């Protein structure tokens, strides 16, 4: 065993270099290992409670909160929905969600650009989602950083809107390649924007073969029955 640091125990291999100085310790640990371990703990706790956790991600302004408000109004009571809101600052989104009567916890990340498993663990402790319910985690609006952080969710849903480019899935592949469902929002605006739905769906499938894509309008209600059916099916697993 190394007298300096104690390495050599617990399977750690020590390789001595040179003349007794500058020795190298093999670590071989996942960089995201600490987060992933916490995410696994969250996932186990949620599974024991029969809670379906959905990680809802998108760029800012795609309509995540509007979609959630509409979803809570329509099926929130049926699915026993609770919400974790992630934003850098303010309680604005939690206030919008809370106005529907749903229970919500706001996580403010400050300078942080994504939620991580530690933040979700704290939010879950405060929220205590009921057994058999659906807990939606609205991540910080960002198509890059949240993709790398497992929270312990059962499913990942990515929202994109027709006011963004149809090529977004190709430009932000890390986000889309782990999506279980893509919601294409704001389709009520299709007559006014240059957006090719077919190209967008092809782009999603290229990054994530087999991903479901649902066309919806959170403001007008188009396609939301498909989203609600998806939630019901995911809850019963």
């Amino acid at each position, binding site marked *: 065993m190394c007298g300096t640091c104690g390495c050599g125990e617990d399977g750690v291999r020590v390789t001595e270099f040179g003349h007794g100085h500058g020795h*190298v310790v093999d*670590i071989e640990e996942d*960089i995201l290992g600490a987060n992933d371990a916490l995410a696994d703990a969250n996932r186990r706790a949620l599974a024991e409670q029969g809670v379906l956790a959905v990680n809802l991600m998108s760029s800012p302004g795609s309509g995540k909160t509007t979609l959630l408000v509409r979803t809570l109004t329509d099926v929130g009571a049926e699915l026993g929905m609770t919400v974790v809101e992630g934003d850098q600052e303010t309680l604005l989104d939690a206030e919008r969600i809370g106005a529907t009567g749903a229970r919500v916890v706001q996580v403010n990340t400050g300078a942080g650009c994504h939620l991580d498993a530690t933040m979700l663990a704290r939010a879950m402790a405060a929220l205590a989602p009921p057994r058999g319910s659906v807990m939606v985690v609205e991540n910080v609006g960002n198509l890059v950083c949240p993709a790398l952080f497992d929270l312990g969710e059962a499913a990942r849903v990515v929202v994109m809107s027709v006011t963004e480019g149809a090529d977004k899935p190709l430009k932000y592949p890390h986000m889309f390649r782990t999506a279980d469902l893509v919601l294409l929002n704001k389709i009520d605006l299709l007559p006014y924007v240059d957006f090719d739905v077919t190209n967008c769906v092809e782009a999603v499938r290229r990054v994530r073969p087999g991903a479901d894509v649902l066309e919806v309008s959170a403001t007008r209600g188009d396609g939301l029955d498909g989203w609600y059916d998806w939630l019901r099916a995911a809850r019963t697993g």
Partner: protein
Amino acid sequence: MHELSITQSVVDAVTGRMGDARICRVRLEIGKLSGLVPDAVRFCFEMVATGPTCEGALVEIDEPCGHARCRTCGTAFDTDDILPLCECGSADIAVEGGRELRIREVELA
């Protein structure tokens, strides 16, 4: 800028593991398809590698590329592209490797 929090977690992991030992170098493996930008990690490392055990430590980063195999024509090739195309024109590609995110080793002073 997820690299800042990730680099902080790297420093926390190695300092936690090495106790009071003085760390002079950390070697990481960041695959070219991993979604982490090595230059950003280097930049952040200088900022977060502070404190008595890791102040001034260097970071070295191995950057393995991905290995791809075309499901259409069978050609195997290396790639840095998360959505590679085969020379035969096919986009039906199986990609292995390139997503590594590991702390490989630390060197103690």
